[in-house]
């Protein structure tokens, strides 16, 4: 704003009231003023209406309508005033180059390099100490800023922690009782063929990392051979027709909640990854790259479902430290 154009110094250019630059754009200013006034009156009434609708606690629609009319009316009136009744010019303002003169630039460079450089050269020890001190400060200040925020992730599969600090761990253990989110123990006759249930290890109902989708593929009895899963090493895991997979999508961790019984596919509603339940939940379509980890299930003597071990890999989406 310092670069003032010359008109402030010299004599100001005169303008007559009949100068066309000062004339309103409106052909009939009186009528335009009337319309603007009417618009503002509507706006005024709109605001009064808003006050009233607020007072009587009217619905959101009435509040929005009155407020909208108030602002539209007042706004349109002011715009009409500005556009049709105020001087439109065109007026001109000069621009000036932003750059300084060459000597001014040189002078500033000189201040930095010569005056500043001299100070630094003469006191190398102080310069170095100040730089070192600032650098150390910068680094140590990051500790409370970042490191305090949360726990470090547990290093590997071996260092089992809780699900709170480890991406490898779930709360499923050998013998964990299979329960629903409201804590009810799942029994072998709870699901029919095609039935689906989201289950958790007992005591950890609702925990994100522990969610498992339990599917009954066939109603087999205790003496039938297990349902055959077409996955190497897991063919015998379909005890009494039950299979259980981690419900965390291996793509981005959404719950894989859609089960299509006819095709025996699990579909993730987030990004449409499709997993083949019959083949160990290998991804058949979409962006997911890994199968949903399978949880071995068994039925105890009282007909309750229990985990027959735990997941043998990290559940959920991939991450750098995952082997």
């Amino acid at each position, binding site marked *: *704003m310092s670069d003032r154009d010359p008109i402030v110094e010299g004599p*100001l250019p*005169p*303008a*007559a*009231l009949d100068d066309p*630059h000062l004339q309103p754009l409106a052909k009939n200013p009186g009528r335009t003023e009337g319309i603007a006034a009417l618009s503002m009156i509507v706006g005024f009434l709109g605001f009064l209406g808003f006050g009233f609708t*607020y007072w009587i606690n009217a619905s959101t*629609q009435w*509040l*929005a*309508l009155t*407020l909208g009319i*108030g*602002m*539209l009316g007042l*706004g349109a*009136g*002011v715009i*009409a*005033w*500005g*556009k049709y009744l*105020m001087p439109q*010019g*065109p*007026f001109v303002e*000069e*621009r000036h180059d932003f750059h300084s003169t060459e000597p001014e630039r040189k002078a500033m460079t000189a201040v930095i390099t010569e005056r500043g450089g001299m100070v630094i050269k003469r006191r190398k020890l102080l310069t170095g100490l100040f730089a070192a001190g600032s650098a150390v400060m910068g680094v140590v200040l990051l500790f409370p800023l*970042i490191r305090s*925020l*949360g*726990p*470090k*992730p547990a290093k590997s599969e071996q260092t089992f922690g809780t699900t709170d*600090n*480890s*991406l490898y761990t779930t709360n499923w253990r050998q013998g964990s009782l299979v329960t629903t989110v409201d804590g009810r123990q799942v029994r072998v006759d709870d699901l029919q063929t095609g039935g689906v249930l989201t289950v958790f290890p007992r005591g950890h109902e*609702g925990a*994100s*990392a522990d969610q498992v989708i339990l599917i009954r593929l066939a109603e087999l009895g205790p003496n039938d051979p297990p349902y055959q899963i077409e996955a190497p090493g897991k063919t015998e895991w379909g005890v009494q027709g039950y299979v259980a997979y981690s419900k965390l999508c291996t*793509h981005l961790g*959404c719950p894989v909640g*859609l089960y299509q019984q006819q095709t025996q596919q699990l579909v993730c509603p*987030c*990004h*449409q*990854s499709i997993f083949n339940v019959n083949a160990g939940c290998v991804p058949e*379509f*979409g*962006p*997911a*790259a890994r199968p949903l980890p399978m949880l071995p299930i068994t039925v105890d003597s009282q007909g309750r479902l229990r985990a027959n071990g735990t997941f043998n890999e990290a559940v959920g*989406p*991939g*991450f*750098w*430290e*995952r*082997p």
Partner: protein
Amino acid sequence: MIDKSLRWIDDRLGIAKGGRTFLDKIFPDHWSFMLGEIALYSFILLLATGVFLSLYYVPSAHEIVYHGTYVPLQGQRVSEAYASSVSLSFDVRTGLLMRQAHHWAADIFLGSIAVHMARVFFTGAFRKPREFNWLVGVSMLILGIVNGFLGYSLPDDLVSGTGIRIAFSIIESIPVVGSYLGFFLFGGNYPGSGVIIPRFFTIHVLIVPALIVGLLAAHLGLLVKQKHTQFPGKGRTEKNVVGTPMFPTFIAKTTGFLFMSTAVTFLLGGFAQINPVWQFGQYQPYQISYAVQPDWYMGWLDGALRIMPSWEWVGWGHTLPLMVFLPAVVFPGLIFTILMAWPFIETAWTKDREYHNLLDRPRDRPKRTAAGAAMLTLLLMVFFASSTDVLANFFQLPLEAVLWFFRFVVPLSPIVAYYLTYKICVEMREAGEDVGERKRALVVKRTAEGEYITEPSLPRPGDGHVELDAIPLPTFIDTAGPELATPGGVRRVIR
């Protein structure tokens, strides 16, 4: 009175000279120059409605039993964040209006930034000396997108909660530091130790708005300092600005526009339902809803995630989820880097080091226009790809077909858009200057000799736009004396 108080202030602050310059500032007129104003005014509305919401919203994941007026939720265990979002919608007068207006204002804010940015891009307004302001603008766009995501995550509803889960997984996908970053931000493994809602709240209401306010001040300060660009026209040069003065004309119009755009946002907030969190329900990590799309400005990221092939690199004891890292981290990083760097890419290409205060017509810069069209087409196509499930349902097509369609269309469409835009621009440029002007009718006449000739009809009103010569803004206006009646008469300046 005004004189007296101005004197009092000027004695202490010396504002008269600069203030006068400011009031005399000339703004060039063009409809496309108001797109940025929409962004400014929706940001003001965001601050105002946001303050209102923050008086009632409780940023806490703590579980309580809901006892508000929304019957279906009564007696259920929900987080305080969710309960307060529902309560401020139903139990606070104007609460629902403010919440929905806030949400609409956020969508409009980012929409108007995008359109404003396209205007600046296609007219070359980012060129020297305005590269700083381009960088400031792109930074505000990024911050706006981030804050939009944080904001709609705060109600802790089922839809946004899924978004937070996806965000955690995206952070996890970053090589080497991903799991650390995720654990630090969330205070542990997902869903974290209940800190994510309060942390998002602090970032959403304090850190990002403060950054945007600072950048906005810089954006407008640079605009004042460097003066607005203008389209070429009568009397307009690289060395001047032609238009209307800040005071009173521009002020009146822009104030009116503030009212109008705020009115539209409130009307949308009152009549067009947006983000009805009470219908979605409290977020539970094991529940999910079908056909859920994020707010529009996140759609392009979601679309990129959907169409990515399932590439996951595993080796040397490490996993690199490329199908997440590439579309969700590298892709937006690349897009924003290109946006940021564009003014410098263009000067490196054109070797143009001149000042540019006059705007380009897009057709006159076919390559830039084509590049912009290609970028917009790419983003639009990945945006559409974020609703593969909805499109498959709507058109009764297999999901596989829709996905494969986008896997081809997304990379190919920018090439087609570039080629077509380039050709159209070149053709329009060659067509001459009178393209787009109203044609004069031709009248067929018979001469006395019996010869038929055609000649243009007489001009109709509005055919020729008469523009006055621009004059410096006068401060002092003559009283209309009798001697002024004759043109060219002596004008008396009153001081």
